């Protein structure tokens, strides 16, 4: 048990080394994570499906190849045998894909997403599918049709969203790595509130073939992990051109792992975005943000202030573009080709009425809100004022980024304005919920890459704060270079990874040792 506890706390990079050195087997590593899921996921609810048999079979295959040695063993990917969780918006053969919606309950995809094919090619055991806000629409995972995921730091609080399941799985040591998707912050904001790392790559940098689309001009798949290096390792597996995604960039992938391993900030210009901190940001978030700036300065970076005056329109423009694209993308859920079909209780049984009844029963409130809002923004007479204007704002945001990156190599801000809030706190106030993404949305609007890493705990509530780094399009390597330095400076201050301060989730199940464990971890949960 102790041994397993040690295995689940290792980074993906450390697990890869131990596997290559044959100090542990892939089956042991995978089983340790499956055991952890069995022990804590009843409380955290990060997973919608656990893929036990397939994960263990893939792990056993890796072990057999390693044991046999020779060319096949030499050719194994560095992450072979390192398990991973996949957000349930990404389709997988052999496991259900629900998108967190009742309309796809029990649906099995006949094909794998490109990123899943790449995980399989690297022989990474897939532990299961993680929870999300329905069709990735939300910032708290409370809009999942299958119940919310809980934040491992405080089970009464949200893990962020939409990728709360992937972030919580990694934070709760149920998986060393996970895949997320980020349309307006759904990888980075959960990373911030769970004390983990998440990266939204450059738009088109990772294939979206097989990611169920919400807003096609904004959606991006990316890595979720506990360390900056681990995200780089995963990014390297999933990134690069895919002819099956017409928005996939043809550029060769940079060496992101080398960037994370070498880390460098000396002489770099790091820009604070004037509009993305200060008013509206929690004091504890501001404090940790300012500390990170001091650390970077001490390490030789030059901190400059940049202004992005049009960012104040980003949230509004996002909430026109995203619902418009979502209303169109979700039109395919018509009760004919896949998923749920609900028949109207009375009256003529026409396709229109079946569709209306199916979508009424299959979609949750937030999805309906966004479809109606998008239908409105795209309707005749409003199109120019809403969708057209929002697309112009997009140009202004890109120009702001261009001007900012003329002054700085990377930009920095808090990832989210607050730490994790209580479950239910913002559920009935859509607008308050949308404000969580105010600092993450500009990157999606402009297509630039962003990384969130833990910046410490807020003084007032002891909950994780996220620091966001942004780089110009196609310059994802800069995020890893700077992120790795900031991470090591912060960890030197804390005396180890931030997640070591997270409460032990198993304390409450073993009643006799609960008090002792709670004391030894200094936690209340």
């Amino acid at each position, binding site marked *: 048990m102790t041994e397993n506890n040690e295995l689940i706390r290792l980074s993906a990079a450390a697990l890869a080394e131990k596997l290559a050195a044959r100090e542990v087997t892939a089956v042991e590593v995978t089983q340790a994570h499956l055991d952890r899921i069995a022990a804590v996921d009843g409380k955290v609810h990060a997973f919608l499906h656990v893929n036990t048999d397939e994960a263990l079979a893939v792990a056993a295959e890796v072990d057999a190849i390693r044991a046999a040695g020779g060319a096949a063993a030499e050719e194994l990917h560095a992450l072979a045998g390192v398990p991973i969780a996949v957000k349930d918006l990404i389709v997988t053969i052999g496991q259900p894909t629900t998108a967190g919606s009742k309309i796809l309950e029990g649906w*099995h*995809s*006949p*094909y794998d997403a490109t990123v899943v094919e790449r995980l399989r090619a690297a022989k990474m055991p897939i532990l299961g599918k993680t929870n999300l806000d329905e069709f990735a629409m939300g910032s708290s995972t409370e809009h999942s049709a299958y119940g919310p995921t809980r934040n491992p730091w405080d089970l009464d609080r949200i893990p962020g969203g939409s990728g709360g399941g992937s972030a919580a799985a990694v934070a709760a040591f149920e998986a060393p790595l996970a895949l997320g998707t980020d349309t307006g912050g759904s990888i980075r904001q959960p990373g911030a509130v769970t004390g983990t790392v998440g990266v939204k790559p450059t*738009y*088109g940098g990772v294939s979206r073939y097989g990611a169920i689309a919400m807003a096609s*001009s904004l959606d991006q798949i990316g890595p979720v992990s506990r360390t900056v290096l681990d995200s780089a390792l995963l990014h390297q597996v999933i990134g690069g051109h895919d*002819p099956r995604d*017409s*928005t996939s*960039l043809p550029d060769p992938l940079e060496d992101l792992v080398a960037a994370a391993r070498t880390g460098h900030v000396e002489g770099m210009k790091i820009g604070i975005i004037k509009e993305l901190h200060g008013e509206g940001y929690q004091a504890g978030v501001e404090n940790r943000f300012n500390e990170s700036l001091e650390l970077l300065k001490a390490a030789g970076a030059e901190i400059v202030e940049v202004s992005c005056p*049009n960012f*104040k*329109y980003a949230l*509004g*423009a996002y*909430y*026109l573009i995203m619902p418009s694209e979502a209303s169109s993308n979700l*039109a395919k859920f018509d*009760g*004919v*080709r*896949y*998923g749920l079909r609900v028949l*109207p209780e009375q009256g*003529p*049984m*026409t*396709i229109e*009425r*079946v569709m*209306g*009844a199916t*979508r*009424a029963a299959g979609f949750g409130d937030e999805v*309906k*809100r966004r479809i*109606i*809002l998008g*239908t*409105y923004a795209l*309707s005749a007479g409003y199109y120019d*004022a*809403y969708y*057209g*204007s929002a*697309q*112009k*704002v*997009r*140009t*202004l945001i*890109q120009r702001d980024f261009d001007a900012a990156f003329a002054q700085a190599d990377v930009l920095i801000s808090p990832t989210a304005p607050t730490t994790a809030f209580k479950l239910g706190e913002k559920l009935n106030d*859509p*607008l308050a919920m*949308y404000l969580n993404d105010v600092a993450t949305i500009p990157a*999606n609007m402009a*297509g*630039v890459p962003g990384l969130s890493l833990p910046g410490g705990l807020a003084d007032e509530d002891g909950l994780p704060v996220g620091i966001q780094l942004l780089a110009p*399009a196609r310059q994802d390597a800069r995020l890893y270079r700077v992120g790795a330095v900031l991470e090591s400076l912060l960890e030197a201050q804390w005396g180890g990874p931030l997640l070591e301060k997270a409460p032990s989730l198993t304390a409450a199940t073993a009643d006799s040792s609960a008090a002792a464990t709670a004391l030894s971890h200094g936690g209340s949960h």
Partner: protein
Amino acid sequence: MAAINRDDVAHLAQLAHIEMSAEELDRMAGELAVIVDSVKSVSEAAGDDVPATSHPIPLTNVFREDVVGHTFTAEQSLNGAPDAYEGRFKVPAILDED
């Protein structure tokens, strides 16, 4: 821009093929009015001289070779369908009998 009211929501729900109860229409109208009001500033943000951006990193002429790629069998395609008949999707009546 006009505020969004209950009748608008009823019409939009019909266009979007989502049946809504009276209670749902009332609630949705209230929530959407607040959201629409909050995004109003967007229409005043950019002048006529600003071009629209539809894709952040536009690619043009993305083609592939005109050869048959991977295809699904009829069985695979129908596997997730709620109803099928003789190898095809079974669809409810398109037209009302009346």
